[in-house]
């Protein structure tokens, strides 16, 4: 009989202690155990990018990581990034540019975009497209998203 394992981690700045079966991936752990449903599940095989979260400051596909692997780690989800205000300007740019339609890709897209903006202050459109190339959006055709990220980068340079 496979038993749950105890893990301790930090999620959006709060300490979480949980007992979790080894087979539970991080996306399902966040959604079903912690009710952090802003992390979306689109394919469960690491292609669509909807489940992108941050682990120890770096973006990962949460469907391709076991919850037990986050023992001792710091995890940040879209809810955390929203509440901290870290991506408020990026969200404003998405709103102004209508860079989302159904919104299902948006949490993952914001995660990936913020990851780029942290690494590069002046990304050109090609670099933005490249960095977001693992995040699938069926609605927008991507251009509005690229525009919003470009606008945010510009805003941060002049801020």
């Amino acid at each position, binding site marked *: 009989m496979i038993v749950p394992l105890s893990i301790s981690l930090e999620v959006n700045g709060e300490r979480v202690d949980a007992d979790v079966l080894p087979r539970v991936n991080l996306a399902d752990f966040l959604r079903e155990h912690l009710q952090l449903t802003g992390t979306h599940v689109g394919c469960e095989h690491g292609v669509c990018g909807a489940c992108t979260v941050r682990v120890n400051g770096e973006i990962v596909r949460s469907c391709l990581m*076991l919850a037990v692997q986050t023992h001792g780690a710091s995890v940040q989800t879209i809810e955390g990034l929203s509440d901290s205000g870290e991506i408020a300007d990026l969200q404003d740019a998405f709103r102004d540019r209508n860079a989302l339609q159904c919104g299902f890709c948006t949490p993952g897209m914001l995660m990936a975009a913020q990851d780029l903006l942290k690494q590069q202050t002046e990304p050109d459109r090609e670099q933005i497209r490249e960095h977001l190339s693992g995040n699938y959006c069926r609605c927008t055709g991507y251009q509005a998203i690229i525009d919003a990220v470009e606008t945010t980068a510009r805003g941060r340079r002049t801020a």
Partner: protein
Amino acid sequence: MKAAAFAYARATSVGNALQLLETYGERAKVLSGGQSLMPAMNLRLVSPELIVDIGELAELRGISVSGGVVRIGALSRHVDLLKSPDIAEHAPLLAEAIAHVAHPAIRNRGTIGGNLAHADPASELPACMVALKATIVVRGPAGERRVAAENFFTGIYETDLSARELLISVELPMAGKNSAHFFHEFARRRGDYAMAGLAAQAIVEEGAFTDLRLVFFAVGDRPVLAKVGSGLLGRAVTPAELATASSALGKELDPQDDQQASASMRRHLAKVLLARGLSALLGRPDLHAGVRA
């Protein structure tokens, strides 16, 4: 789909990991970055009894340079290689290739050891290892083995590594004087597995190759070190010679048909890569322009 149930062990040392592998054999799977294993488990294509998580093994980390050798610990992630000044300086081919591997979120988790042990014939890194004359360091119950990359990859998802062994590190000779490299692949979308790719490492002296390793990937069941490379050493390559080499390459390769490309398509793309690669390595646009693959 959700992964089938499995037990999980966080290995505390290489020895501990090897013990677990010894006990479980084929019923265990080593979890490194998990970027190939997790999709397979989520699709229930793979259902191990035990997952041996080696993620905490510090001795498998790190990139170091000494004695003319670049040593890369198995747990080095793609992003680590991409950002490493040592890799950029001493193995620029690898740095260039890594940028073609998947996407940032995948590169933050995927490791070189996991990638090589998985041995996807369409993957960039096995080809780079062969091109760079890498040595794969493997540890098992009987101790450590060192395997030349050329002999490590034995088939589709198959390597010389047994179920009771762990890939520890890879060692690359530092790129020397006059070395040149070329990397290119044809993939439908950014980050996709290639339909055909070429990782090439060479030494060019006075317009001629003194060493040339052309390793094609996604055109066979493993990286293919093309024999035609050796015929191009020591003299200026003419368009006619390139044409000869191209046709010899076509005969040498034995790619498979799949959904993305027929065998003849892959063969054709390899010839295009050969022309573009040689032309780039020698700085001779005339070569590329002169040949219709």
